[in-house]
């Protein structure tokens, strides 16, 4: 719960104002750090700079409010929800608010990252304080005009009200407000007073989307721009030996073909010519014979677990003793493959590198890192680089890595032309950054109807779990525990994939705990509640919040009641600081599972925008169902074996369950939304399959080699 005391931070440190030349007031603020005392807020909107300030609020003389939203939009709705938070505390009518995507051109725009479900979590307090500070100044301006104390005044929907009933619009107060000092103390609203937060607001771009307006990186176009496509080594780790581009260059529309690093770039007048020419290049690559594929990597993972070449991440009690003194030891091993992100908008970026400056534009979740990487790669100063953000056609973690931004800049630098680098779907899927392949081996020590020891050994390609994952449940709920992890190295590029680590750790852990419950002859939900009730010592999760979502989903899904032919599976997982419990309902059809319904209860703190939040959590679940059922990606000699949607299966509408999601009411600060509902669902499906068939599937995806799998 907010208290006034917590908010008496010196606002002067991060907020300044100016009177706009065109009339109206501009508040510049920095959500992250103190401002340089010399920093000045520009007096025209055209001159907005993001060197000192990372976001702005403009209030025009007609009272209309424009928010320059600081975060890139990847579909998780922050372009709507973050302004909602400011507008709430500023106390304006949402209808009077316009949101403009701020562009990036600075080294100081640090939190301009859309990843890890963090935007709202990190921005919550600063955004509220910013709105409240602006409101306070308008209030003070009105007090001066009326010559009364500001304490007697109130605000509502863009007006300041006098006790005697007279009112002044914010627009009428902007000039006076711009001359005031920034107050050092502001009071935030009590959550009960919220009138925008907690109300369903439409995505601010929905009308543009239904009209097909140019919004995305791929839509971005500049006069005179050329198109670039890149041919890469087919296998990760392969080198370019030579190439012949004679035929490619003959194609009409092709401007140039050249090598950069181990790749070949084609520059053309249009995308189609660039794509077509690429196919005509004859390239010779170094041998891939000794490069590992899925099979080799799997056996290497097996070996490091066998040989215990692992580092312990978390220990409690003595698992060895527990295993030796138990009545029964359960053992199981779980696998998941690499996964590409497959953002609907293939990777692409605009770059114009000239001796004076570098212009970049497109869809990226980490604009600042990309600017840094381009500067480093080309030996340029960041102050020469300007990056314009567009709407992002899906991120899922892929656009946290700006490899394609650097490539676009390198190509433009060599070609000495403004270019747009465009990936084909094949480039996107085979030249990606992947969720690592992972293997887990579990042991559970059972004694006298209880779990007394829990051991988890992980082997992963290039990147595994971190300490914070190891500290999650069931840590705290089992007296003896050991979590250890080791890596296998590969040239295959690994990165973040929606709900990193949790996405598969949850599957393995939640399935294994179901195995434990079954072995103890306990109802999985009853058993989980029992475990949570007995959490001891300091843990980084709240057992009571977890219990609450489990109780909720148990009720919503009518757990325990049975309908002929349908089977249920349960799973609950804490990630990105949110608590999620899910129950999946399946039917078996022609020997295969059909996911009919998913019930879900979420505690993610205050829900800023329920309309957007519901879209996020339902999307996360269906995405999770899709990848659990079909997501499979293999390599042979370092080369992906599928490259487009004909072989790589994504979930489609006729395969989707109906999802019923409820948010547990909470006054806690908002936490992650875009990711936490995905991890639990695969475990819930596996548990439902076990309930239906008696078979435990420990390898994703479920429907691949179904017979082998069961």
């Amino acid at each position, binding site marked *: 719960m907010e208290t006034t005391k917590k908010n008496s931070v010196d606002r002067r440190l991060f907020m300044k104002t100016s009177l706009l030349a065109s009339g109206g007031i501009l508040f510049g603020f920095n959500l992250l750090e103190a401002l340089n005392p010399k920093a000045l807020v520009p007096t025209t909107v055209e001159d907005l700079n993001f060197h000192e300030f990372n976001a702005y609020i403009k209030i025009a003389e007609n009272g209309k409010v424009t928010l320059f939203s600081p975060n890139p939009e990847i579909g998780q709705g922050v372009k709507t929800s973050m302004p909602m938070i400011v507008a709430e505390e500023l106390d304006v009518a949402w209808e009077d608010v316009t949101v403009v995507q701020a562009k990036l051109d600075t080294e100081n725009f640090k939190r301009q990252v859309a990843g890890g479900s963090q935007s709202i979590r990190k921005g919550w307090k600063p955004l509220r304080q910013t709105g409240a500070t602006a409101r306070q100044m308008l209030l003070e301006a009105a007090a001066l005009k009326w010559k009364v104390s500001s304490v007697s005044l109130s605000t509502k929907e863009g007006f300041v009200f006098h006790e005697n009933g007279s009112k002044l619009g914010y627009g009428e107060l902007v000039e006076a407000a711009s001359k005031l000092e920034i107050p050092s103390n502001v009071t935030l609203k009590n959550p009960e007073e919220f009138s925008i937060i907690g109300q369903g607001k439409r*995505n601010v*771009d929905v*009308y543009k989307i239904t009209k097909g307006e140019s919004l995305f990186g791929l839509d971005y*176009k500049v006069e005179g721009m050329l198109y670039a496509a890149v041919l890469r080594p087919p296998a990760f780790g392969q080198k370019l030996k030579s190439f012949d581009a004679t035929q490619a260059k003959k194609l009409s529309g092709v401007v140039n073909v050249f090598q950069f690093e181990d790749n070949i770039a084609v520059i053309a007048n249009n*995308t*189609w010519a660039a794509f077509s020419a690429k196919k005509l290049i004859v390239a010779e690559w170094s041998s891939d014979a000794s490069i590992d594929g899925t099979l080799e990597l799997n056996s290497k993972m097996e070996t490091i677990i066998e040989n215990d070449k692992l580092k312990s991440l978390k220990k409690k009690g003595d698992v060895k003793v527990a295993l030796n003194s138990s009545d029964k030891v359960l053992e199981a091993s779980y696998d998941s493959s690499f996964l590409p992100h497959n953002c609907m908008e293939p990777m692409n970026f605009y770059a114009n590198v000239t001796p004076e400056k570098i212009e970049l534009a497109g869809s990226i979740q980490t604009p600042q890192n990309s600017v840094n990487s381009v500067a480093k790669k080309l030996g340029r100063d960041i102050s020469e680089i300007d990056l314009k953000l567009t709407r992002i056609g899906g991120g899922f973690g892929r656009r946290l890595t700006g490899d394609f931004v650097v490539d676009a800049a390198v190509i433009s630098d060599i070609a000495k032309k403004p270019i747009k680098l465009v990936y084909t779907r094949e480039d996107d899927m085979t030249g990606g950054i992947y969720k690592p392949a992972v293997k887990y081996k579990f042991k559970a020590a059972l004694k006298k109807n209880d779990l007394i020891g829990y051991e988890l050994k992980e082997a992963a390609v290039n990147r595994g779990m971190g300490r914070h994952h190891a500290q999650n449940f069931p840590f705290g709920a089992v007296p003896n525990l050991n979590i250890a992890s080791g890596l296998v190295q590969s040239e295959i590029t690994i990165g973040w994939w929606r709900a990193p680590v949790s996405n598969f750790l949850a599957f393995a852990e939640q399935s294994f705990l179901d195995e434990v419950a079954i072995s103890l002859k306990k109802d999985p939900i009853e058993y989980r509640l029992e475990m949570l009730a007995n959490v001891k010592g300091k843990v980084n999760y709240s057992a009571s919040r977890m219990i609450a979502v489990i109780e909720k989903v148990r009720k919503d899904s009518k757990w325990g009641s049975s309908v002929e032919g349908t089977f249920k599976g349960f799973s609950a997982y804490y990630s990105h600081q949110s608590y999620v419990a899910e129950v999946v309902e399946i039917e078996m059809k022609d020997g295969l599972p059909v996911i009919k319904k998913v019930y879900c209860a979420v505690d993610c703190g205050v829900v800023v925008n329920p309309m957007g939040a519901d879209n996020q959590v339902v999307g996360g679940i269906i995405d999770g169902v899709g990848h659990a059922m079909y997501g499979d990606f293999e390599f042979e000699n370092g080369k992906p074996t599928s490259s487009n949607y*004909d072989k790589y299966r994504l979930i*489609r509408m006729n395969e989707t369950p109906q999802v019923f999601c409820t948010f547990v009411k909470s006054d806690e600060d908002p936490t992650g939304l875009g990711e936490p509902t995905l991890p639990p669902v695969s475990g819930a499906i596996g548990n439902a399959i076990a309930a239906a068939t008696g078979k435990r599937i420990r390898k994703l995806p479920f429907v691949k080699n179904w017979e082998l799998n069961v």
Partner: protein
Amino acid sequence: MKKFQLKINGKTYKVKVDETTPLLWVLRDELGLVGTKFGCGIGQCGACTVHFNGSATRSCLLPVSAVVGSEITTIEGLSENNDHPVQKAWQELDVPQCGYCQAGQIMTASAFIEENQNPSREEVRDAMHGNICRCAAYNRIENAVVLAAKEKQSNS
């Protein structure tokens, strides 16, 4: 390079392109109609869906030479005021997440409710299965198609 005269959204356009160029890239690169999206290029995702003489068609596989003399409608020309029943339903239910697939979804849905005035949910799920939404906004898309079909019925 060859010259083509195309009829798109009721307007006539003249372009000079290689005859194998798919309509998708003519729309996007030559005519600046970027609402139609590129997703896979092999007819698997539906992001590039347009109406070809009224039927939902993948523009990524449709050579420009094949559309001469036909009526093409893209998302930009679906309605004058962004108020086709499908567009309205999409707005009403706040369907998009990232939004990238939505033009294709809307074009498939609008052709579908033209053919099937009173679809069941199963029919909707079948009709829409060619359009991938990587954000998995499927539940809302399904509801929006049902809503649009109802709206269209009550208008006619």
